Each structure stands twice: as structure tokens, then as C-alpha cells.
């Protein structure tokens, strides 16, 4: 990590909504460009940044749609910015085209996905874990992204900052997976005095799209630095030249785009353990649902049930080693969907997995998780 930069907001405790915390975290992380398109329940992020960014010398623009928003973000990043956009499921669907472009051109950027109930327009203001697979598989081809799942306003703040750093470290788009409830939940948020920032790796006259080894992250120049950047969304060699017929170049590029993330999974993945030691039943949860899960686990333990919680702060790359290490007789995965991340859990463990789902656009309470725990 490079030196701490001073937080533009005076340190202290703030009573923030999730969306406010997210916008302030972006500023603190050095984000100086935002392009977006209004969509509930994410709009407060762009509304706040529309006046906060100019205050700190940054640029804000409301674009004509989400395709243009992510495109402008990528353009700004190559012009030297740390940049972000925020949206919800329907907007994310439009962004997927150029999220693919960000992946193949290795453009660091942050995309905040304030999830709402779908499919399609669905329920614009109701919470849902609807895009867990959309962020992972929505664009075409084989690739890795990073997705982080906060469970509190404080963590929206902390993980948004982390998202910017991870984006720079691995030159990938990083998603912050919020939802309609977290977006408008108001809680204490501690703003620190300084923030650890990872800067962009620069090197003159070297290839910007390849490394010697098969898993490395190349340095990145900006427009106007006289590097003669050749950037393309087509398959390219290390210098950026389009190479659309060479099987080896295609293979090497796809392998590295994946492996630069997967081989660093240990550094990227964060989980949190609650009462896991010797637990016979383990609840695996993320986001706001994990708060209900922790309450349920505590309640069940008072009743003498040996249950623990593994909370996933990182969803992608998927924490498969952490799941595989669970020595429980049952795993319970509560989610605000019909079962998305649970399938990944099933893929990596031999333990029997139980689904707990809610798809009515309401938040999940501890009751339904407790009930599931008691049944095991």
C-alpha cells in the first residue's frame, strides 16, 4: 500500500445512509470521475457525487444511459482517473457489454450495484440479491471479476474504498453489492482521518497488456503520456495490437485475465467467522441477510444448538477453500433470491446444503433462518 491520503471529510462519526457512505468512500478513495444514469435504489449516490466531486476537483456527468455511463467511466480511467459508476439490476444489464470491455482491456473501475427485486423492472425499491450471477457471468466469454458484499453502512464505506484498491491492484472491474435496504438504512459510520490508497502502477515504454509470467498484472499508462497506447476490445498482444486469428494469443490472454485474479484469491477473499469452531451446522451468508443470520445463530446457540456463521465479504472470486474447510453436518445458505450463490456452495462442498430463500421483496428476518436451523 502506498501512503495514506487525507480524508477530505473531517474524521468522526456520521449518521449516513448506505448510499451516502458509498459516495463519501469513493471520494476518500481518490475517485475523481463518476458517470451514471438515474435508477432506484442507487440514485442518491450520483446525486451526492454531483456536488461532492466538483468540490474536490473531480468530474461528474449524468450520461444518456447506462451503456454510456460505463463507457465514459472507462474512457476517464484511461485518461488517468480513478472512476466509478452506480446502478441497479436493469442498469447493470445495460452495462454488461462494456464491463466485458473493461475486463479485456484490464481497466480498473468500481461499479456499485444497489440491487433491487427483478426480473426486469421488478420492484424498484425492494431489496433482493438478484445480481449475484449477473455480475459474474453476464458479459460474454470467460473472465473473473471481484465482488464485495457489505452488511452495514460502515462496511459499505470500508468496502467501497477497498474496491478501488483491488481494482488498481488487479486491473479489473470491482463490484460493490449493496441492495435497496442497505442503500437507505441509516447507521453510524466512522470516517477515518486517513485512507490507504493503492496507486496505479506506471512504467515507461513497457507493454501495457501483458506480463512475462502467465498470472501478472501489467503496468498502466494514461492518455497523453506519450506512450502511444493501443487499446482494443479485440484479442490483442502484449502491446495492444489486435490479434484475432492467433490461438496462442487468445489462450494466453484469457488464461491471464482469469489467473491474475484466481491466483491472488487468498489476498482478495475476506470472510468473517462467528462460532465456527466445532459447529455442526454452519450458516453461510452475505450482505444484510448475514445480519439476520447472526441473530438467528446467537438465538439458536442460546437454545443449545451448535451452529456457527461464515460471513462472506467477498463473493467473487468465490471463497471455495473457506467453504470446503467447513466440517459441519449441514450448511444453510439464506439468500434474498431463489438460490444463486448457494449453487456455488453446493459445487465445492460434500456437506448437505439447505436453501433458505425469500423472493417477496422483503428483507429476511432472523426467524426464518432460525426455523431452518432448528429443523436440521
Amino acid at each position, binding site marked *: 500500500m502506498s501512503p495514506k491520503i487525507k480524508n477530505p471529510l473531517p474524521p468522526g462519526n456520521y449518521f449516513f445512509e448506505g448510499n451516502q457512505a458509498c459516495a463519501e468512500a469513493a471520494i476518500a478513495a481518490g475517485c475523481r*470521475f463518476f458517470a451514471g444514469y438515474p435508477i432506484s435504489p442507487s440514485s442518491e449516490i450520483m446525486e451526492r457525487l454531483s456536488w461532492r466531486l466538483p468540490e474536490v476537483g473531480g468530474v461528474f456527468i449524468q450520461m*444518456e444511459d447506462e451503456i*454510456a455511463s460505463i463507457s465514459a467511466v472507462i474512457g476517464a480511467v*484511461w*485518461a*488517468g482517473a480513478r472512476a466509478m459508476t452506480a446502478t441497479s439490476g436493469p442498469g447493470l444489464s445495460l452495462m454488461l457489454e462494456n464491463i466485458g470491455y473493461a475486463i479485456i482491456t484490464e481497466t480498473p473501475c468500481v461499479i456499485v450495484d444497489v440491487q433491487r427485486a427483478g426480473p426486469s423492472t421488478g420492484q424498484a425499491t425492494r431489496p433482493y440479491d438478484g445480481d449475484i450471477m449477473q455480475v459474474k457471468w453476464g458479459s460474454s466469454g470467460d473472465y473473473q471479476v471481484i465482488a464485495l458484499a457489505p452488511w452495514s453502512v460502515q462496511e459499505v464505506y470500508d468496502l467501497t474504498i477497498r474496491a478501488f484498491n483491488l481494482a488498481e491492484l488487479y486491473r479489473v472491474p470491482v463490484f460493490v453489492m449493496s441492495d435497496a435496504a442497505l442503500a437507505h438504512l441509516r447507521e453510524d459510520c466512522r470516517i477515518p482521518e486517513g485512507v490507504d490508497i493503492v496507486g496505479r502502477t506506471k512504467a515507461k515504454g513497457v507493454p501495457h497488456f501483458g506480463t512475462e509470467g502467465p498470472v501478472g498484472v501489467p503496468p498502466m499508462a494514461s*492518455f*497523453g503520456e506519450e506512450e*502511444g497506447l*493501443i487499446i482494443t476490445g479485440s484479442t490483442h498482444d502484449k502491446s495492444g495490437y489486435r490479434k484475432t486469428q492467433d490461438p496462442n494469443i487468445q489462450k494466453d490472454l484469457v488464461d491471464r485475465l482469469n489467473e491474475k485474479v484466481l491466483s491472488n484469491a487468498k489476498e482478495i477473499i475476506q470472510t468473517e467467522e462467528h462460532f465456527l469452531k466445532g459447529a455442526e451446522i454452519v450458516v453461510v451468508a452475505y450482505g444484510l441477510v448475514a445480519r439476520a443470520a447472526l441473530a438467528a445463530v446467537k438465538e439458536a446457540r442460546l437454545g443449545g444448538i451448535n451452529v456457527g456463521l461464515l460471513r462472506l465479504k467477498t463473493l467473487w472470486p468465490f471463497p471455495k477453500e473457506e467453504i470446503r474447510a467447513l466440517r459441519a453436518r449441514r450448511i444453510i445458505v439464506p439468500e434474498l433470491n431463489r438460490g444463486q450463490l448457494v449453487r456455488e456452495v453446493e459445487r465445492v462442498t460434500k456437506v448437505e446444503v439447505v436453501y433458505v430463500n425469500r423472493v417477496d421483496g422483503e428483507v429476511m428476518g432472523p426467524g426464518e433462518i432460525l426455523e431452518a436451523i432448528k429443523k436440521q
Partner: protein
Amino acid sequence: MEATWKKHLRKETLPLPFCPGCGHGILLGAILRAIDASGIDIKDMLFVSGIGCAGWIPSPHIKADTMHVTHGRPIAFATGAKLFNPRLKVMVVSGDGDLASIGGNHLIHAARRDIDMVVVCANNEIYGMTGGQVSPTTGLGVKTTTTLAGNVEPPLDLCRLVEAAGASYVARSTVFHLEHLIGILKKALGHKGFSFIDALSPCPVQYGRRNLYASPAEQLKDLEKRCVPLEKARSMTQEVLKGRIVIGEFVCRGEH
């Protein structure tokens, strides 16, 4: 002696990938001549292009920063780059399918914002790269692979579109009228605000063959016949102008 504008080409990328007789190579030459004549340092320039044969005009041939993006989106990418670093001299070069069809919304809104960039539409009135399908600028009656009996949809006049949207410099020329084309490109480069140039650039392979042009040269000559200078067009009736292409400067407002 080698022409000075040729130094702006990455020699290792030559020869150009275009079919023999394609207008896009001529357009590339015109762009580089205009830059050379305008005295702009090409190192300050960023070229953004979309998908299609036209998207390959700058990328990777021009020795400057080039960004070859997704289909229809170059103006949106260019907007982000220009806003964050206003010192960049930004030029978008892309096709009629790219800018007028899939990217039409971005074109309208960039013109509305009057954002400082030059957008050049390499207009061959066809989807060249994908095999000659009809485009929003294909003329009535023209045979394409998706309009075998002739196009029945009227074409879009891109100059009138961006003018209505708010562009402050709007002009049209063709690769046949090379000096005129270089002149308006140069003017656009010196203009502060949104400049749009509709540059007709024939596609002999996907358009010419199907519409019975004997050769690329014939197609170029026909372009000359179809074009009417704006000054002359002003005294012509809509009836007479039907199917003709008006070339010239339509809007030239503000700083130069």
C-alpha cells in the same frame, strides 16, 4: 521525399487492412493531412473508434493514443476521456452503422452537450464489415444483403440530426472531394465544441458490386455526380435534390 503526414502512421501496421478501392484508406490519409496542416501535435491526440471497417481507420494505424471500443460506443468513451483530461484533443472516427444506428443516442447527446471533440463518420452507406447489410444511411432502392429488392426505408441525414441536437460545427464531404474534405477536417480540428463531419467513403466490395458499379473508380465518379455543393443546393428545389448529396459546411458557430 515521403509526405510529412505519413510519419503519423505506425509503419509496422501497414499495409492497411481495407479492400482495394475502399474509401476508408483515403479518409485516413485526409485526416492525417489535416492534422499535419493544422500544426496540432499528434501526441496530444486521442483517437476513439468503434466496430466496423471504419473503426480500423485510426486503430492501430495512427501513431498516437488509440482506443478501439465496442460497437456504437466510441463517443461515450471519448466523452469520459475528454471530460477528465480536457487537454486531450479527441477525435472519434467510426462508421455509419456504428455512429448512426447502434450509437445514435450517444451521437445526439454529445451534440446536445456540444462537447469539444471531432466526430468523423466514415459513411459508406452500408454495414461493410458484416457483409453488406442495410444501414441507416443507405439510400432508397439500394440493394444490400438484407434488402435484396432494394431499400424501402428512407436514409437519415446525419448532418441535420446533429445540427438539430446542438452541434456547433457540421459539415459533409467525400473522399472524392479530397481537398474539400481536408479543409473541413482542418476547420473541425480548430473548432472548440462538437464538430461533426459526414465523410462519404465508398465501399466497393459490399455496396459497389451489388449495385452494379463497374469498378471502384466508377463508384467514386458516381459520388461526384451525386454531390451538390451547398451554395448551389440553396437555389435548387427539394424535388431536384431528391437522392442527391449536399456537401459543404452546414453549421459553423462560435470559437475557431
